[in-house]
């Protein structure tokens, strides 16, 4: 950690722009926690770049007193790839929404993940299109009634974490706007990860999809509805911390410790470093209605990052052939002299 960086505070990361989100929007909490975490990362603020697409969430860069580029709808991962490849010493963040990242930008999303570009992707998932005033999104539940689906949507939703894992993500986490501690933890872990880091953040849009996550994140029931994943620890949850996930063949099931002969040993131990993403995938598939919702780091494995390898090739080529010489470039192939 550089000396200058240690002296930074949350205030250093707050820009002078008026924040234009609706009062009560979950985005405020996310912004606050990201600004809280930034000083802890040991990165000077001039080395931080936030790139976003379009949507309510994508206004984020304006509020961060770092470098920022508010790009076009869905394309932030591609823009950020260009930034990161040319400036590998920058800490590059992508802020996107469920519509921005999974609908119009779905292609860039999976390819940035597949390439393992060293980006931190924060997806604010409010299961609705906020900025365009409330149409259903690719994460809205089937049958969702919105302005564009008065009879209910007939689109099956995507599971962002399943998609990220399917696209070979090396780091995947989930957290929620109403849980500052978990938010800070996931954001920090993402920042520390070298390679693509994808964080899905459950975010409440109190205007167009209010309460979308109430059945999960509501304080009074949260401990029964949320499973906090911890590396090396059994997957236990519940008010009394006596429920856990147990493997039955290829399926996970909820078991109660102390009932039907189930002991803590029967509960699956979370291994975020498992090179095989199968368990992480199973966790991403749990049906919200009958299972707890996993939060925290699903997967964190190391693999050379795209930008690293790109820059290595440039270095290797320069070492092998020497720094390019314009004269020999022009004189390539057969030349002849006219006097």
């Amino acid at each position, binding site marked *: 950690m550089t000396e200058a960086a240690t002296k930074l505070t949350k205030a250093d990361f707050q820009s002078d722009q008026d924040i234009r989100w609706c009062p009560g929007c979950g985005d405020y909490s996310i912004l606050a926690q990201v600004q809280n975490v930034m000083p802890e990362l040991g990165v000077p603020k001039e080395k931080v770049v936030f790139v976003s697409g379009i949507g309510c969430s994508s206004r984020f860069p304006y509020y961060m007193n770092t*470098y920022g580029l508010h790009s076009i709808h869905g394309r932030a991962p591609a823009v950020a*790839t*260009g930034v990161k490849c040319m400036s590998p010493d920058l800490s590059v963040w992508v802020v996107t929404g469920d519509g921005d990242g999974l609908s119009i930008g779905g*292609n*860039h999303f999976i390819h940035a993940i597949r390439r393992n570009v060293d980006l931190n992707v924060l997806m604010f998932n409010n299961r609705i299109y906020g900025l365009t005033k409330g149409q259903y999104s690719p994460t809205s539940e089937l049958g969702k009634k919105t302005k564009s689906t008065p009879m209910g949507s007939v689109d099956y939703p995507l599971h962002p974490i399943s998609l990220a894992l399917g696209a070979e993500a090396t780091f995947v986490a989930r957290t929620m706007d109403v849980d500052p501690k978990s938010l800070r933890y996931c954001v920090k872990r993402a920042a520390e990860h070298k390679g693509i880091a994808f964080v899905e953040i459950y975010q409440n849009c109190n205007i167009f999809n209010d309460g979308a996550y109430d059945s999960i994140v509501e304080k009074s029931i949260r401990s029964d509805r949320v499973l906090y994943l911890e590396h090396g620890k059994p997957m236990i949850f519940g008010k009394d911390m006596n429920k856990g996930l147990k493997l039955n063949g290829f399926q996970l099931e909820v078991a109660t410790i102390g009932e039907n002969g189930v002991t803590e040993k029967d509960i699956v131990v979370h291994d975020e470093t498992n090179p095989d993403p199968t368990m992480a995938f199973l966790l991403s598939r749990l049906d919200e209605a009958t299972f707890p919702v996993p939060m925290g780091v699903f997967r964190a494995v190391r693999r050379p990052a795209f930008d690293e390898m790109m820059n290595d090739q440039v270095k290797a*080529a320069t070492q092998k052939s020497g720094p390019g010489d314009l004269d020999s470039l022009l004189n390539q192939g*057969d*030349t002849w002299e*006219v006097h």
Partner: protein
Amino acid sequence: MVNRPGSPRWELPEPKEHLALSPQTEAASAAKPLEEHSHLVVRFAGDSGDGMQITGSQFTATNAVYGNDLATLPDFPAEIRAPAGTLAGVSGFQLNFGSQKIYTAGDQPDVFVTMNPAALKVNLPELPNGCVIIANEDAFTDRNLKMAGFASNPLADDSLSKFRVYPVKISTLTNNALADVEMSAKDKARCKNFFALGLIYWMFNRSPEQTMRFLKDKFSKKPVILEANEKAMRAGMNYGETAEAFTTRYEVKEAQLTPGKYRNITGNSAMAIGLVAASKLSGVPLFLGSYPITPASDILHELSRYKNFGIMTFQAEDEIAAVCSAIGAAFAGYLGLTTTSGPGIALKAEAIGLAVMTELPLLIVNVQRGGPSTGLPTKTEQADLLQAMYGRNGECPVAIVAPSTPGDCFHIAIEATRIATKYMTPVMILSDGYLANGAEAWRLPRISDLPRIDVKFRTDPSGYKPYLRDENLARPWVRPGTPGLEHRIGGIEKQDITGNVNYEARNHEHMVKLRAQKIANIAKDIPALKVLGDPEGDVLVVGWGSTYGSITAAVEELRAQGKRVSGVHLRHLNPFPPNLGEILGKFRKVIVPEMNAGQLVKIIRATFNVPAIGVNKIQGQPFRKREVVDGILTHL
């Protein structure tokens, strides 16, 4: 005088025994007369698998090294391997080489080499009376004739009587020549294009040395293929010597070119090294984000090989990601480049708007092809000018430049970089399929003659605002990582100077005008147009891009006939050179030949209020000189 590798007449390099010409053939050679020409046009055509592009480019390289001026037109089908023997699968390559200045690949061939009936069928309408046709007789089988739609064998009936036809059993002769080479019959058959090339070398009195070097290089790890191709080529040469049918050989002497060092270069290649040069001259590393598309992919391929110049190439998942990554690189303080063809530009339009709004330098290369939609992927057209000018939402001006010859692609890349970085703007380069794949004998520029591109990055935080303006109305370029200059930009309308998000009515109008003014100001900073011919007269022919060669040749021809015709050629299309309006005013008529339905002509009419007339060709093929001449004459 030309100094070239190898001496004036072709000497066989260290002839191996089986390759040496026999004493008789040398005697025969002396007996066959050389007919001298100031220029000749040769066209090779065959199946796309027949290797006609290699044959053509080898003959080109040899003539280039010999010292001819030249221009080429490769013409291949969109399918990689259309069914053999079909009309759809015909691939052609035309070369015009001369001892005089060569502007175009030539209107019609003097010598036509055809490897099968389909190639003959496709090209027949374009062959002039007296054209020499060398045909691979072996391929004129019943089956192939039928596929090509010939009722009877044209080599046997008298339907080709107005040409000078030489049927040669190229396949058989190649096979015989390779009798003692250990390879499959199929592989042997694939050497027949080198037999044809050998015959052509004999016919045009050219040394096979250059091709020998090419083969040695290409097949250094496959000695059998090297030997086979070499033998096939020698056999072709020897065949010319001995076959009684061939009575004449042709001589095209070296051209009196401007002194200097030359090489043969295609437009795509020149564009690639021009971009590398621009990066060197500006001292700013280059990032290319690209998605493969014909006919632009070769620029991606070539730049991918120049990593030691600090160039990074990124094959993105689509054109949108390609341009966006280049914008990201530009935001990071590097030269952002994206290369594509028309359909790709359509996809990039929104992102180009972002670069206009964020006022970042961005290089966009459009190697145009026939459209709309997928159109004619391998054919040339100039139909994306209006797209470049107006094809984005909102008032969204970008600077536009267009190279005029393959070699000019080098210089235009440097010019585009200069404009982009000086004015903080996207610049679109409009090349096309003809320039991209066509080649010319190109005089290498001296590095000391190339412009320096001064790029300044702002590092001083005091008084910094993202949209401050310099004397060119350009805003400061800042590299993220620079302390104290953290700032946010994006596609939402900006307040001038501060760069803050701003939706006020007056500010928007001000910003729209300012962005337009910034581009308009470039006119003060580009060279005035030079008129070809007299500064006033009956007709001014206005061209842009790849039509330079045909138009110049046509104007020169008409002037030689005493017609009061002049020409100007535009390399800058937005803004126009400062004196264009004045020049237009000095002529009774303005004629604009274009390979489209009339695009520049519309802009000229609208901008200068002159009744300009279009001469248009929309066939996926460049103009012939004749077509331009006729087009002008109808209005003279």
